[in-house]
């Protein structure tokens, strides 16, 4: 029997002369009904282009299939070559036989239509349902993706739902016509890790229920481990390795696959935590940073007179200290207040209450600004119109310094130290890759010789193998300059590689804090447990997750609300967890 989908020698090019600018060069694979193929690769590897070529959405992105065949076996048994099919035939196939979900659920839905109307549209187009029938079908579709209270949610517009819920709506829309193939293009990348686990569990269940085939595109090889039957690894437009899941993960043949599996930080439940620093007892030096009772609240106004009706408790009484040479990771999901904490320490957000004190770096002299920051997005944190020498000079000028020979010497020293060529000084940010830009940001943060560097998701925007190198660099710099890091991240695998201590933030409060190994291997608070269980990993690929539909509590509190004093339970020398009521 012929497979459901058979791609042969697919070439896709872009631009005026597609044959000369090929992004995908000779990809072939087969997919049977009920099978899941994971396409893994870094940005620019051509994985999304390959998938978008299958339903020919690539035509709208300026791409052309220059060579090859994409044979899809249709429901009636006939075979159609999608690479050569006319647009009219494709309209029937898209949505009808091939469903697709995208990375950003927030931008994939029309913000002014209710989600009910958007799901019904698909039923109208492909199944000819109208009126009450379509509404009933839409409600069934939401039920199928386990959205609680589906009948009421149909009347919601997208902004009333969380990212996880929206991605469920997208899945419901994609599945509305029982497609026999679902293409999922990084469907969980924009979501929090616990939500990601829920979506993955949902997809696995739906696959079992419907028997559809799935193509799953991801950069995270750990994520596909639980769901895929076959894996295809792509690099620079070519499939460098493909085969059954266990074969590729356990005995990778191609060096790039081995590199991906090796270089990428995988979560190992505390076994990979750093052991190069122990807090001295009693303390020998004053902490580099102390934060006491940090509270950030944003006013909520309502009514005609815009009266203040409550507060968003973004950060609610956070305490910690940070020793020189130590890394404290603040982990949590979006809305937990981790970035607000970092921004408050830098003075970018005005704290409502609380005190913090930073002490100058004792190891190096000439310290002028004790706390510096590296931002998440290296493309946004460098002014595109300034040359690197101006960028590096800015902190010095801001601190009242001059462009002296000493400053230039420090620039070249730091450039060399972060692994950039010396001629970088005369270049502009767009001439550098994402990883190199983040190195520039790190060099800029070190210009004033700080004692504390706040790293706000500093490696999250980078490709996985670049991530590993930047993390190594950070560890080296920490040892060399005696830096204390406040590492804000949602990625447990990365945190495990860099943190000495971990603080878990949930709804603006620290729920667990302590030694990294202890927190990761034996989490005590129920939220930490949930967070760690949700981290995808190669080791745990055969475990299944239960669907958990708990929602994060609202952070909006009435005026005058004060949280209860935290009660802490001690587990070991350096491990505290908040008692749960």
């Amino acid at each position: 029997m012929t497979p459901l989908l058979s791609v042969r020698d697919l070439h896709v090019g872009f631009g005026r002369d597609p044959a000369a600018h090929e992004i995908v060069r000779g990809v072939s694979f087969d997919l049977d009904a009920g099978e899941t193929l994971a396409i893994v690769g870094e940005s620019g590897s051509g994985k999304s282009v390959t998938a978008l070529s299958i339903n020919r959405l690539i035509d709208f992105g300026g791409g052309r299939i220059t060579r090859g065949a994409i044979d899809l076996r249709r429901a009636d048994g006939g075979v159609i070559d999608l690479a050569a099919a006319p647009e009219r035939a494709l309209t029937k196939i898209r949505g009808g036989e091939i469903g697709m979900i995208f990375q950003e659920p927030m931008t994939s839905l029309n913000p002014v239509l209710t989600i009910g109307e958007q799901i019904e549209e698909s039923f109208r187009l492909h199944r000819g349902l109208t009126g009450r029938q379509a509404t009933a079908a839409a409600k069934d579709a939401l039920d199928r993706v386990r959205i609680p209270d589906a009948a009421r949610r149909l009347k919601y517009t997208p902004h009333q739902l969380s990212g996880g819920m929206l991605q469920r709506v997208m899945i419901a829309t994609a599945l509305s016509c029982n497609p026999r193939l679902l293409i999922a293009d990084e469907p969980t990348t924009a979501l929090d890790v616990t939500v990601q686990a829920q979506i993955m569990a949902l997809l696995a269940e739906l696959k079992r229920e419907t028997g559809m085939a799935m193509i799953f595109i991801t950069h995270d090889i750990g994520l596909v481990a639980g769901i895929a039957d076959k894996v295809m690894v792509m690099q620079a437009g070519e499939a460098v390795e493909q085969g059954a899941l266990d074969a590729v993960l356990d005995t990778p043949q191609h060096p790039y696959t081995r590199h991906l599996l090796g270089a990428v930080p995988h979560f190992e439940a505390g076994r990979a935590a750093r052991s190069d620093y122990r807090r001295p007892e009693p303390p020998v030096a004053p902490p580099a940073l102390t934060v006491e009772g940090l509270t950030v609240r944003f006013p909520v106004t309502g009514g005609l007179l815009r009266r203040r009706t409550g507060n968003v408790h973004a950060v609610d009484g956070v305490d910690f200290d940070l020793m020189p040479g130590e890394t404290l990771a603040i982990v949590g999901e979006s809305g937990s207040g981790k970035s607000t904490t970092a921004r408050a320490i830098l003075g970018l957000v005005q704290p409502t209450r609380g005190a913090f004190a930073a002490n100058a770096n004792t190891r190096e002299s000439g310290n002028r600004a004790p706390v510096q920051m590296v931002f998440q997005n290296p493309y946004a944190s460098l002014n595109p119109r300034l040359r690197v020498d101006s960028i590096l000079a800015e902190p010095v000028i801001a601190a009242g310094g001059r462009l002296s020979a000493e400053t230039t010497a420090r620039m070249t020293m730091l450039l060399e130290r972060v692994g950039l060529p010396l001629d970088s000084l005369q270049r502009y940010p767009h001439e550098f890759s994402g990883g190199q830009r983040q190195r520039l940001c790190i060099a800029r943060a070190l210009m004033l010789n700080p004692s504390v560097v706040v790293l706000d998701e500093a490696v999250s925007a980078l490709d996985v193998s670049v991530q590993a190198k930047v993390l190594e660099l950070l560890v080296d710099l920490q040892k060399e300059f005696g830096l204390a890091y406040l590492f804000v991240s949602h990625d447990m695998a990365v945190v495990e590689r860099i943190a000495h201590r971990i603080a878990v933030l949930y709804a603006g409060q620290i729920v667990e804090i302590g030694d990294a190994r202890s927190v990761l291997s034996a989490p005590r608070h129920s939220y930490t447990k949930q967070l760690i269980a949700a981290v995808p990993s190669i080791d745990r690929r055969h475990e299944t997750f239960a669907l958990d539909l708990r929602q994060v509590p609202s952070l909006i509190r009435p005026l005058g609300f004060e949280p209860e004093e935290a009660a802490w339970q001690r587990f070991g020398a350096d491990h505290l967890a908040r008692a749960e009521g």
Partner: protein
Amino acid sequence: MSLLRAILAHPSGRIGGVIVGVYLLIALLGLLGMTPHDPLMQFRVDRLHAPDAVYWMGTDLFGRDVASRLMLGISQSFVVAFASVALAATAGTVLGLAAAWFGKGWDGLIMRVMDVLLAFPAILLALLIIAVVGPGTWTSVAAIAIVYTPIFTRVVRGPALSLKTRDFVDAARTFGSSRHYILTRHLMLNLVAPLTVQVTLALAWALLTEAGLSFLGLGTQPPASSLGLMLSDSRNLIEMAPWLLIFPGLAIMIGILGFNLLGDALRDILDPKMRRAAA
């Protein structure tokens, strides 16, 4: 230099660039008095002389050489257009940056005033200002500048608002960079591209407004020459001496076309998205 090369490589930029270049040269020659004849000299025997080898574009009712007067008119129009656009761009940039940076009350106040100015048709507002102050070259410069300030304010305020929240501005705040440094290095430098496009397009409009004002007798005063004034002076002679209207009319049309083509080309060239696609 690379900008010039990019303009010449762009299809409409090439045409617009050449037109603007030629006009600039003519305006310069006009300013330096290097015209074929004295533009004020009245050749009484050759009144309403049709174009020939001596008088390239003929002569007017007083026997003055149309080609020479046209050159002088172009330089006059250019002086007014450039001066008024320079004033408008400066005022608009300052106001737009202030509105974006200080926000809240300032933003509301500045932008509402700009909305009121924008509510009037350009030529009507200019007429109003001149009616109050009285006609003259520098009055029309001021009037045109006031008319086009709101456009620059909007062009600056929008991008400035989004630049203000970019990470590199936050980063600058964490170093403690001064407001002046952030405004000039981080905001202004990133506004150069949209401003360049807007300046080019505004020059076209300013040329037209100046011609309109002069036509109505409220801009440049005789015996000085201006494109609008030449049209106005000769509108009764259209059947007898059509060259008196055709040449200034064409000069206005081609000039505005040139600036618009150049502006469109600059918009393409300076747009970072387009640049990425080309690279």
